């Protein structure tokens, strides 16, 4: 059971659009807010494409999709989220940007509205401090791509009330997601372990311990991981890895979170991963060479 009926999603980038799909698909009236009409239009098109595939794959019927899409609306005004019981922000990972957004939302949303953040690197308590409702604030970190991944890392800030956390937890389950509870620590669980692990794999390449294909083959064969760390980095993009790792290192100063020098050299050489045709591997179209 959840007390939440109407869901707001602030930001219509990849994560925002994915979270909106999750909420709308679970039957919640969902409103996506973005100041950029073109971003909303792009997200709408991608969302319609996603649901068209769901029909094709017989996961949903056309009638279900029509109903979901009718309940999934967009707004370019913060005031458009005034009727929401919870608003999940998925805007740029910058404390000032998030505080600006939350100040505006705090003015238009009723007192009972819970604010949630999809941040992956910032502190929930620090974001909550600029929200005007620190007790009704919670971390809800979805995984990419949100519309396919069940996991949500949920963190209370220092001032989050038990009632808020429980309401958000129940809502998360009502969306069909699998919440896990973690402390408000840099990187929560997933990035806290993944970023240093990936850095260590890069250091193995840097030190000449083994070639990327040997490292990935070793990890997949010995441990059954679906992807090797260097394949995964090529998929994520080294520029994205750099941003997340720098944020984690700034917050923790743990040596394993520090980005290896090879990453900056590869970025300078345009070897960002799949999206530039080469990273630790060379790609042509979607096919992978090497390995």
């Amino acid at each position, binding site marked *: 059971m959840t007390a939440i009926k109407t869901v707001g999603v602030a930001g219509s980038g990849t994560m925002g659009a994915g979270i909106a799909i999750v909420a709308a698909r679970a039957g919640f009236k969902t409103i996506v807010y973005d100041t950029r009409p073109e971003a909303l239009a792009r997200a709408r098109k991608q969302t319609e494409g996603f649901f068209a595939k769901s029909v094709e794959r017989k996961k949903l019927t056309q009638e279900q999709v029509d109903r979901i899409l009718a309940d999934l609306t967009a707004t370019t005004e913060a005031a458009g989220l005034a009727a929401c019981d919870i608003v999940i922000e998925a805007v740029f990972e910058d404390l000032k940007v998030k505080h600006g957004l939350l100040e505006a939302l705090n003015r238009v949303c009723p007192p009972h509205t819970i604010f949630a953040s999809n941040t992956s690197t910032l502190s929930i308590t620090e974001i909550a401090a600029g929200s005007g409702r620190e007790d009704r604030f919670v971390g809800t970190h979805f995984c990419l791509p949100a519309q396919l991944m069940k996991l949500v890392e949920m963190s209370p800030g220092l001032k989050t009330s038990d009632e808020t956390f429980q309401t958000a937890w129940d809502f998360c389950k009502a969306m069909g997601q699998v919440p*896990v509870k973690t*402390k408000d620590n840099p990187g929560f669980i997933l990035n806290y372990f993944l970023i240093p692990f990936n850095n260590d794999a890069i250091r193995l390449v840097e030190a000449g*311990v083994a070639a990327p294909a*040997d490292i990935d083959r*070793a990890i997949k064969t*010995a*441990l059954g*991981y679906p992807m090797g760390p260097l394949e995964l980095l090529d998929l994520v993009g080294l520029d994205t890895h750099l941003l997340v790792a720098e944020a984690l290192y700034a917050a923790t100063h743990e040596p*394993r979170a520090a980005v290896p020098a090879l990453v900056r050299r590869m970025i300078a050489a345009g070897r960002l991963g799949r999206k530039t045709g080469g990273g630790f591997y060379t790609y042509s179209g979607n096919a992978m060479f090497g390995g």
Partner: protein
Amino acid sequence: MAFQLIDTGGSRSFPERHPLLTAAAERGEVVVVVIIGARAAEAFRSVGSRERYAAILIELGTECLGTHTGEARGEEGSNVLGFARFRLGTAPPSDLVELVHQPRTPETAISAARKLFEDHGLKVALCGDFPGRIIDRLVRPYYNAALRRLDEGLASADDLDTTLKLGLGYPEGPIQLLERTGLAEHFDITQALYAACGDPAYAPARRARVAKQRQKT
């Protein structure tokens, strides 16, 4: 490929019957020599006319290949390679063979070794002569971090495991995996790496140390 097996007993890579063990040649010209077991070093020293083989393969524990072959100015390398089938604690060995070469190991020796293992259903990852090779070097800091964060209350053991399984598709979370394969065994490997590298990331986590102490008593 005809090869000779020298089994000194107590091999971690081949604790039980395996197609590779039964395939060793009883006759024909031996191309590769495979030495396994706890006394592999001693057996290696007794192998004469080493240059006549395409490759001589020594099963390694936590030591470097260089301890058997000697090293010289970063230019060492011969037909002698090291190997170990990766194995987590008390779990059975995986299908992965970490094949250890030196800077000047000839390609012909690497190819012969690779072919021998692959012909018997094993997968090979080639790596340099570094402590921990590939997997231990990568996973031990992660396991130590998971144990430390469990102590610090980052999340419950179940939530830590669930996050890594659902978030990254790992077949098992770190806590469940260490409980299944042995915390004391994790201690042994990570302690050896800590001694070899001096990197605090390898320093055994408290829970591993406790498990080791309990094993002793």
